[in-house]
Every structure is written in C-alpha cells, then in structure tokens.
C-alpha cells in the first residue's frame, strides 16, 4: 500500500485509493492492484524466508545439483556391526528428536535406546517410505536450506539395525545427548504476540482450517529480520502467517462465537509481507531475513494465522504465539513473488493423471531465493524448473508425492541465479480417482479451480530477487501484464460457458479497466450487478469509474456498496472525497471517520482527512 500512501484524491480507477489488497509493495505500476486479486491472495502465498548471502553462478548451481544426485546407495555393513549407540542415536537425535522429545511437538519422544527400540519397526517403515521426517522435495535435484531429509546411507543404517534386532551397543559408544531449548531460539524477541483467547479444537471430526487474529500493538513501522512461531499444542499442523492492517479480521473474529473465524477465503486486506513467504510447520525453526532484505510491518497490524489443525481424540487448547526480531537497517533490495498457476483446472471424475502446466519468461536477471508449491488433496507430482536461454534445465523443485498436510515453502541453500530470458515452468499432476485415499469426494466428482479444500489449485510461487530496483519494476510490470492477460483469457472462457457468471464479469472488468479498456470494463461491471444486484465489488468499481464523469452515479454506487458492506472503507473514503469536492464537508468527515473505524491509521484516509481539515479551516 506504500505507493498510495500520499494523500491525494482519487481521480481515476487505477489510481483510486484502494487502501489495501495491493499484494505488492513496490512503487506504483498502474496494474499492481491486480496482483492482489483475491484468487491469488487467498491462496498459499506468504512468507519471509531468507537464504544465506552469497551468489552462485548457474553453472555452480548445476554442479551442486549434480553432486547431490550422485548420492551413494547404502553399502550394507557386516552383520552385527550396527548398534544404536554408535550409528542410530546420532541420526535420530539430529533428524527426529527436534520434534520427538518432551515439548517437541511430536506425539512421543525418541531420545533413549528404550524409546527407539520400542518403535523400531515403525521407525524403519516410516523412514523407508519417507513419511518421516516430513520433507516433500526429492533429493538430488537442488539443495534447500534446513533440509529435513535422510540420506540413503541413514535410511540403510536404520533398516539394517532393525533387521538385526535393534541392538543397543556398548555404553561407551553413545555420544552426549544434544541440548534442546524450549525458549525462543534467537534470544529475547523484540515483540511477542500471543493468541489472546485460546481456541478449543474438538476431539473428533475432519481437519479444521481456522484463522486466528493476534493483535501486535505495534505503534510504529518496524523492519523485521526474523520471525519465530511457537505452537503450544501438537494439533497445529501448518500455519500461514499473514497481516491485516484493517480491523476486518478482528470483526470476523468477533462475529464468530468461538476464537478466530473459519473459511479459507480471507478478507482482501489480509496480506503476506510483500515479496516474502511466511509459514510454519512442525520442526521448523525461526525464519531469518538475509542481510539487506528485512521487511516492513506497519503500525496497527494484526497477525492473521491461517491454521490447519488435526483433531487428536481429546479437546485441545490452541494458543500459539509469534515472536519478532526487528532491525533498524532499511532494506537495500526487495524480493518479488511470481506465481505460476492454472485457473483452468477442470479434473474429470476418476482421472488418474491429469496434468497442468504454466510457464513465464523472466524479463530480467534474477536470483530465486525460495519456492512455495500449493495444491490441495488431489495433487500428486509437483515440478518446478527453469529452461535457461542456452537450453539447459535447472531444477527448482521436484515432489514425487504431494502431501497437503506437510506443505511448506522451501528456501534454497544458495540462491539459484537465472538469467534474463529463462523460462520458469510448473508442472503438476492430479489424481482424482477413488484410489487416491485423500480424495475428498467418494465417489470422485469433477473438480475445478477454487479456494476450498474440496476444490483444487495448482500454484508454484517463486521468490525472486532482481539485481536492482529498476529491474524490480520491470519484473513487476511485466508479470502484472501477464497476469492481466491470463485473467482476461480465463474469465472470457468462463463467460463462454456461462454468460450469467457475475464473478467472471466483475473479474474480467477489473482486468480490462487496468488496461484502460474503460468502456468494455464498464459494460461487464453493469452486467455483473444486473446478474447479482448485491455484488459489492462491482458496485464499488462502478462508483470509481463514475467519480469524475457523473458524481451522482458515483455517490449512488458508493452508497450501495456501503449498504451491502458497511466495512468497505475504500468506498467510504472515495465517497468522502466525492463529498469534499462538492463542499459537503460534514458528510465527508463522517465517511472518513467511518473508514478509519474499520482501518485505523490508513494513511490515504488520514491524508484525505487532513485535506478536509484544511478545507474546513478555510485553506
């Protein structure tokens, strides 16, 4: 929202003070607001993840990949050589015990010989199948930071140990037990926010997706260099960490009788930090920004945690907290997220191997810092790679068997450099057959694109670091153009299938308006409200379009928007501006104040209020 932070009356659609929902943080390309379209914002996009400093050439990245893929297969040891104390304890302590210890989050500890011995068969089974440790990317294609992945050597040692009866070995061979801390790992945080009222997860039933609002009480803008999440319970399975500068999430929370609010679609104002992913999964430590790449958090922001929880068999008290570490160093560069996706998902019932692809050609040189795949319960294979201008292929991510429960973002151990002209590609396959046990529909039904877990999505997000701010703007504008084209193509197809789809009319209108195709955009907005007279967003944009040409129409449309949703602070702000221009200063103030009630500290509204004060005091 930074680009619109200067208070200036909104005079055209693309410059309208759309105070939130702009998904990007860079200076204003006229189409930037489209990047924040609900369909994308509400998906798995978030994060703040940083990679160690240092650049590598593509060549060295490829060499790195090659060296991992040559991982040596396990060479069996002479019978009787392997024991717990010397061979297995170091593996279990390093790879499992971070969670499998008291207060570690996993259901049982694996610290002692007795504990490991009692679970030996299960350990052999789940490490062999790679269910544990939970880590989806395949090894051997590209190296990630903090990989929780066993080597073939480690898996082989465990197999042989269990096959030989899990012997303990001489006491003298047991190394000292590592120390784990239950405190914040980066020392005393600058700010800790905790869910004020615990939520009680029912003991039974399907998995629960719920959004929790944690007020931060931040009085001024701060730059964040690290974030650590702490679950107080084992039932939290994964969490996306987002922020809301408005009061919309708080109100949704208040309207719900229990703590938090349900649903996968969040208010449009809820954003992940621009250019970053921010998520947590069991076993994940603090997320640190690399030097020069801290990110800003605005005063008055609430944390919105989108949490996936699995019932445990008894009622569970859920009360997570998030710690922040701030820095005074202003970021020297900012990453930008691009998403490869497929809105055209339309998976026939019973299809075993439905495939979707998407690609994008980079208009500038960039380093890939992190990757976030997102699909639901039908997704199976996930692939991301780049085809370099010289034709070579650079892997970015390869997942053989997707598991929604363990979704995460992945940071590269070393950034992957991609030259301008590289084509980044996504390929995903889906299993909508009854043989897929995770299929939410039995018998299977046709499944299309959508946000709910019974719908499907296909997304691969890349966190890109351009070489400089100019390249950043080029990338952002180029990507937004592509996104607009995608949306126009997709929504046009939707309308061919069903001409009375109000949502498709409105989304198509927004895309057309961003390209200054005003007449066409207007026509689709009118059709949208004709089909659905309560379509808030369409009324809002009709108001914005009429602001200059027909103030009476604009006033009526904004009033209608507010009637449908009294919390639409953008409509109130624009209505206030309209009144101000007409000299109706009292009414203007009323609207600005109402907008600030919903979104306190909104700089656009505050700036407009300041202009109003000057007008009231005779300039």
């Amino acid at each position, binding site marked *: 929202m930074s680009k619109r932070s200067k208070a200036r009356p909104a005079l055209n659609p693309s410059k309208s003070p759309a105070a939130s929902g702009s998904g990007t943080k860079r200076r204003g390309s006229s189409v930037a607001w489209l990047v924040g379209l609900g369909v994308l914002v509400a998906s798995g996009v978030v994060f703040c993840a940083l990679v160690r400093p240092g650049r590598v050439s593509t060549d060295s990245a490829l060499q790195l990949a090659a060296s991992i893929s040559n991982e040596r297969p396990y060479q069996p040891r002479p019978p009787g050589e392997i024991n717990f104390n010397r061979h297995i304890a170091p593996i279990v302590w390093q790879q499992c015990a971070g969670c499998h210890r008291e207060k570690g989050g996993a*259901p049982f500890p694996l610290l002692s010989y*007795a504990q490991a011995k009692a679970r030996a068969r299960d350990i052999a089974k*789940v490490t062999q*199948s790679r269910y*544990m440790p939970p880590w989806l990317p395949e090894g051997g294609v590209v190296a990630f930071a903090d990989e929780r992945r066993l080597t073939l050597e480690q898996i082989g040692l465990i197999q042989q140990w269990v096959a030989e009866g899990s012997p303990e070995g001489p006491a003298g061979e047991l190394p000292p037990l590592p120390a784990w801390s239950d405190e914040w790992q980066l020392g005393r945080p600058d700010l800790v926010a905790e869910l004020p009222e615990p939520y009680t997860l029912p003991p*039974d039933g399907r998995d629960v997706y719920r959004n929790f609002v944690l007020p931060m009480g931040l009085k001024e803008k701060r730059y964040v260099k690290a974030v650590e999440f702490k679950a107080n319970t084992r039932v939290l399975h994964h969490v996306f960490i987002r922020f809301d500068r408005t009061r919309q999430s708080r109100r949704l929370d208040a309207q719900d009788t229990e703590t938090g609010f349900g649903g996968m679609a969040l208010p449009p104002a809820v954003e992940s930090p621009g250019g970053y992913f921010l998520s947590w999964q069991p076993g994940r430590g603090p997320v640190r920004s690399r030097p020069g790449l801290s990110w800003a958090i605005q005063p008055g922001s609430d944390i919105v945690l989108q949490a996936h929880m*699995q019932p*445990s068999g008894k009622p569970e008290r859920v009360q997570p907290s998030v710690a922040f570490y701030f820095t005074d160093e202003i970021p020297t560069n900012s990453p930008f997220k691009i998403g490869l996706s497929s809105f055209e998902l339309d998976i026939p019932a019973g299809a075993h191997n439905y495939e979707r692809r998407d690609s994008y050609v980079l208009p500038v040189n960039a380093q890939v810092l992190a990757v976030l795949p997102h699909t639901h319960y039908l997704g199976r294979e996930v692939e991301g790679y780049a085809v370099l201008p010289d034709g070579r292929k650079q892997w970015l991510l390869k997942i053989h068997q997707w*598991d929604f429960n363990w979704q995460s973002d992945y940071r590269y151990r070393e950034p992957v450099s991609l030259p301008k002209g590289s084509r980044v590609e996504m390929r995903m396959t889906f299993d909508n057959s009854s043989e897929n*046990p995770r299929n939410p529909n039995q018998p299977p039904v046709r499944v299309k694109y959508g946000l709910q877990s019974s719908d499907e999505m296909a997304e691969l997000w890349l966190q890109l670091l351009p070489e400089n701010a100019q390249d950043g703007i080029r990338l952002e504008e180029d990507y937004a153009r592509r996104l607009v084209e995608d949306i126009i193509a997709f929504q046009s197809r939707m309308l061919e299938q069903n001409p009375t789809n109000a949502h498709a009319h409105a989304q198509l209108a927004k895309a057309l308006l961003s390209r200054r195709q005003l007449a066409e955009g207007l026509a689709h907005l009118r059709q949208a409200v004709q089909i659905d007279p309560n379509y808030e967003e369409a009324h809002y944009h009709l108001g914005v379009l009429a602001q200059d040409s027909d103030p009476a129409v604009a006033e009526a449309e904004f009033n209608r928007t507010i009637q449908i949703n009294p919390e639409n602070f953008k409509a109130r702000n624009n209505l206030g501006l309209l009144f101000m221009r007409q000299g109706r200063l009292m009414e203007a103030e009323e609207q600005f104040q109402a907008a600030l009630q919903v979104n306190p500290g909104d700089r656009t509204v505050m700036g407009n209020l300041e202009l109003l004060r000057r007008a009231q005091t005779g300039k």
Partner: protein
Amino acid sequence: MRAVAFFVTMFLVALTSTLRGADPLAAEARPVGLDGQPVDPFQSGKATVLLFVRTDCPISNRYAPEVRRLHDKYESQGFNFWLVYPDPDETSDEIRQHVKEFAYPCRVLRDPEHVMVRLSKASVTPESAVFTTDGRLIYHGRIDDRYVDLGRKRPAPSARNLEEVLSSLARGEHVSASSAPAVGCAIPTLP
C-alpha cells in the same frame, strides 16, 4: 509365561468349537486390571470387544471419540468393551491418566504378557478384536478404513468394519470370522 500363553492359544483353538461357554483363559495367563489383579474379559453378553491402545500412539488416540461412540451405542446392547494396553512399560498410573484425558468409558486391562495380543492376532494400536461368548475370535483388525497407511488417511472412513460386525451380532445374525488389516503403531514384541 510365553509358553503358557502359547499353550492357552492352542488349547483354545482345539476347544472353542466344542466347549461352549468355557473360560477361554487359564487363570494364570489372564491379563490384569489396573490394580494388578487378573481379569477375565470374557463374560456373559453378546460378545466381547477388545480395543488395543497405547497412551502415546497418535492414531490410537485419534480413535478415542470413535471408541466412545461405539461403546455408547453397543455396550447397552450386551457387548463388553475393554481397552487393552499391551505395552508392559506403561504404568497403571499413566493408563489411568490416559483414560481420563481421552474420556474413555470402557473398562481397562493391561496385557503385559501379550496373552490378549496373541489371542486377538493384534499387531498395532489401535486394533480391535471381537470374541463371541464362547471365545471364538470372529473379527480382528481395523476399527474403520480411515487410515490407509501411516501418514495417508481419508477425510472420513468409507468402511466401518468393526461396527458392521457389531451391528450384525446385535441383530442376531450369523457372523463368519473375518479380519481387515489395521494401520497404526506397531505393538513391540516382548523381549
């Protein structure tokens, strides 16, 4: 003791078809209650339902509400529900705490010698076994098919195997012996 248990099993196999109403357990091989006293879970009624659980198996714990539901529906129809804790390292105090925490309504027995494990052919927790009053094992295996493998589960079960057996028995129908593989935490073999 294992030899005794083995003998008991063989004895059962030989006798259950002929000895209606016989006590399937030799006194010295009986599992124990939380007070350490031997317990005979095979009492009068339509059938005995054993549910193998442990305190720290997440899959077994997740079934607690389903166990409660089945207990509440069928205990009053003449079925005897027992929770069986096969891990000899779990103490009676830990088990009492666990039963309270997960609000299990069933009676409890410990099976440190795995007598019931063998009789029931149980291999994991959670796993169920249904015995008729004459001591015949007529079902053993999963409670339902929610879990396909460790880490792979359906959003909801598509087959409630245990309940199908119980409802057939409740209606007085003839039930032939069956089993279905259970998914859960392996019951460790005794040293």
